[in-house]
């Protein structure tokens, strides 16, 4: 059946077609849609879970694969960094059931974080990595990835970039195959499944290298990469890796009016990005006088090509990033194909053929990302600000470390509160470093609930052990919100059919031996500010749990915190409410501020900002 699905969903359907027994992962843009689509299917024979973090997710998936069943593990590139300790060990051990690790990279960094090229991780782990050029190919390669994993008896990477992960296209989907109900293999083999000692580790390393070589042979035989040599030798050869291949035809069309002839060009579309497709690369080198390499981010394929060229005594020219033609930053598209052709063939294609008027962009209003109307974090930011002022300090004198997720939005106006963002859970550990460095003013760390469970908890344990003076504010909105509302261990489990156990942060903190611990409602800004102020004056580790459900998610369940009404005759349009809260439910009317009833959640945080009693709570 033909379906309109995303690249993420193509992996989900491909895995179902491969009879996957378990799917684990942690949300991260742009990879999230794969696992969330499977969760929405209510599968009976396949276990699907959002794990507490990527390392845990991979370990759960590995247990399934070591028992002889098929498993898929999903994450974004930053998550792969978290899982990597485990992954190297698993790569060394290999697996019996197919184990596919899906990682999504983000050239152009549209979701923030980084332009990390995870292909280099495949090199470091000696693991095969497959990368499709389109959504339809994603489905096919997912099925193949499971087969390849079982044939080499080792884990296999599947990599997508944002443009494929989030793109919708038509894919021919087959029926899922029945999930194997075979008894799990219980293989007791310390030579494979432990790492104790040089003999075990070096033997595993040897096997790992052999598995990668075997993967190269299998993918060569299966002709996963698409090689097309021109009839006449001696012309241009183009290697396009992953998504770059999807722009070739369009680039050729654009270059055609300038004398470019597609028939004279050889192409190698690379979908096995590791191991390097040496045999096909050598055919290209033997056939072509000039080589053009199209790949986003790092010059990985390009370096492989230089190695083969050296081994063959190639005398032609290789064009890519290493000779300065292309940038290692950002996404590729049709312009790069055309630019590459022009730099090699010199057809006289004008530079501005595919460049529009970017002057217009300078006129656009800046639109910094900020919290939604009704977001409980707004109250927490304002409360921290008030607490700092109560101590007669200025915002630029108090270090407030930030963390990953919606909680980071306090870095932007009107709050301008948060100073740092590193990685999941880093806020609380980084704060300790500032204390050791001798910062005399109180140090505050902020973190969200899912991030706390993911990796923040370890940093908190460290702070307690080493008796650091810091205040940790956990902004618990009960959901993993920024990636689009996934559950985490603290998400209220209020539907009877749910299969997970909710874990209450309010019970974890006292159990760690923290004496100064408060739970507050961030919609009550005065109380929250008072508690944070008090915490900042006390020694040791203090934890403030600011708890209130994400407004978007609450509204979806029909909840409403209250209702705020504008008393028009009292409003003098001083805009203080807007200045303090930056709430998008406000707009400027002719005589008074206006509140959009659709957007307003009635959190009431704005009420006390008004000195003229123009904002009042209505009974609901």
């Amino acid at each position: 059946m033909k379906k309109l699905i995303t690249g993420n969903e193509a992996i989900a359907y491909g895995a179902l077609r491969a009879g996957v027994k378990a799917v684990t992962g942690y949300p991260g843009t742009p990879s999230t849609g794969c696992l969330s689509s499977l969760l929405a299917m209510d599968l009976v024979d396949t276990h699907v879970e959002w794990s507490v973090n990527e390392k845990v997710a991979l370990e759960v998936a590995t247990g399934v694969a070591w028992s002889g069943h098929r498993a898929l593990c999903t994450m974004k590139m930053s998550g792969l960094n978290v899982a990597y300790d485990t992954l190297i060990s698993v790569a060394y051990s290999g697996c019996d059931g197919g184990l596919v690790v899906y990682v999504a990279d983000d050239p152009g960094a549209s979701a923030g974080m980084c332009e990390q090229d995870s292909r280099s991780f495949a090199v470091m782990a000696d693991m095969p990595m497959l990368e499709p050029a389109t959504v339809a190919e994603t489905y096919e390669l997912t099925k193949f990835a499971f087969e390849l994993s079982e044939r080499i008896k080792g884990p296999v990477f599947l990599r997508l970039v944002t443009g494929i992960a989030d793109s919708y296209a038509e894919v021919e989907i087959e029926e899922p195959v029945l999930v194997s109900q075979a008894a799990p293999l219980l293989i007791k083999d310390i030579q494979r499944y432990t790492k104790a000692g040089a003999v075990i580790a070096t033997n595993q390393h040897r096997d790992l290298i052999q598995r990668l070589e075997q993967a190269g042979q299998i993918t060569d035989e299966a002709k996963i990469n698409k090689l097309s040599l021109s009839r006449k030798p001696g012309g241009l050869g183009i290697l396009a890796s992953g998504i770059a291949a999807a722009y070739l035809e369009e680039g050729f069309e654009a270059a055609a009016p300038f004398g470019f002839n597609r028939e004279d060009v050889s192409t190698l579309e690379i979908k096995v990005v590791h191991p390097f497709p040496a045999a096909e690369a050598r055919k290209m080198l033997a056939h072509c006088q000039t080589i053009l390499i199209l790949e986003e981010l790092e010059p990985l394929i390009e370096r492989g090509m230089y190695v083969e060229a050296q081994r063959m005594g190639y005398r032609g020219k290789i064009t890519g990033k290493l000779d300065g033609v292309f940038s290692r930053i950002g996404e590729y598209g049709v312009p790069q194909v055309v630019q590459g052709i022009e730099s090699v063939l010199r057809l006289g294609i004008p530079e501005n053929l595919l460049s529009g008027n970017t002057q217009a962009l300078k006129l656009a209003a800046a639109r910094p990302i900020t919290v939604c109307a009704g977001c409980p974090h707004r109250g927490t930011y304002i409360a921290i600000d008030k607490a700092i002022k109560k101590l007669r300090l200025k915002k630029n004198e108090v270090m407030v470390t930030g963390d990953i997720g919606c909680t980071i939005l306090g870095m932007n106006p009107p709050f301008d509160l948060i100073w740092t963002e590193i990685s999941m859970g880093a806020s609380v550990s980084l704060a300790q470093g500032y204390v050791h460095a001798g910062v005399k003013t109180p140090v505050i760390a902020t973190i969200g609930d899912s991030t706390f469970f993911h990796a923040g908890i370890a940093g908190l344990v460290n702070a307690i052990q080493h008796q650091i003076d810091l205040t940790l504010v956990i902004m618990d909105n009960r959901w993993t919100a920024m990636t689009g509302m996934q559950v985490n261990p603290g998400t209220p489990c209020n539907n009877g059919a749910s299969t997970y156990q909710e874990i209450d942060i309010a019970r974890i903190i006292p159990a760690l031996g923290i004496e100064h611990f408060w739970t507050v409602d961030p919609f009550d800004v005065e109380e929250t500010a008072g508690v944070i102020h008090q915490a900042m004056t006390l020694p040791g580790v203090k934890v403030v749990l600011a708890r209130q459900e994400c407004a978007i998610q609450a509204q979806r369940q029909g909840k409403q915190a209250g209702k705020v009404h504008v008393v028009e005759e009292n409003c003098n349009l001083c805009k203080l409410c807007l200045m303090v809260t930056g709430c998008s439910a406000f707009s400027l009317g002719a005589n008074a501020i206006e509140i959009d009833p659709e957007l307003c959640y009635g959190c009431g945080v704005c009420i006390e900002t008004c000195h003229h009693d123009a904002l009042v709570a209505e009974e609901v």
Partner: protein
Amino acid sequence: MKYDIFFAGVGGQGILTIGEVLAEVAHYKDIPANFYPSKGMAQRGGFVKAQLRLGRENVGPNIPQRGADMVIAMEQSESLKAIPFIKPGGDFVLYSDIWAPTAVALGKAPYPTFAQITEQVKLAGARLVHIDPGQLPEYAGELVHANLYVLGVIMGQTALGTLIRSEDVEHIIQTRFKRNTEANSFAYRSGLGMPLVVS
């Protein structure tokens, strides 16, 4: 037929839904399509863009600059981000809604005027199809969904209307949204029948 559409707006306007409906029409009519929505990081009120590429079997998700046959923009300032992508001679559809960022509302930052947008569209050599939010009709006492109205205008007044059939768009709207079917049809048809407003 090869036809590329670039969308720009802010989260919460329903602009991505226009793209989804058109992608579903393509799917329904066996037209090859790639639809690439890009939401950024904000849940609501942040910049969103999308790219719909119709008519190519194997196609990358990104439209090159000067490559879009049509731009659909639903926020005045964000429409500027689509200017580099419009093809000379293409249709630049602007629903000139204004979502002022806080700094603009506070008078601390400038916001582009409608005249500035018009000038940029002209410089890009495109045809401006302007939809004034004030002309949005009401159905049963409530303003209709702007996105479906805009979709109607597009089908009525741009080249896309000659490439796909309006009945098919309406069919997808009807099957996709189970609630408020009459209001949705009304919104779409009102847009479709809007008198020509090209500047």
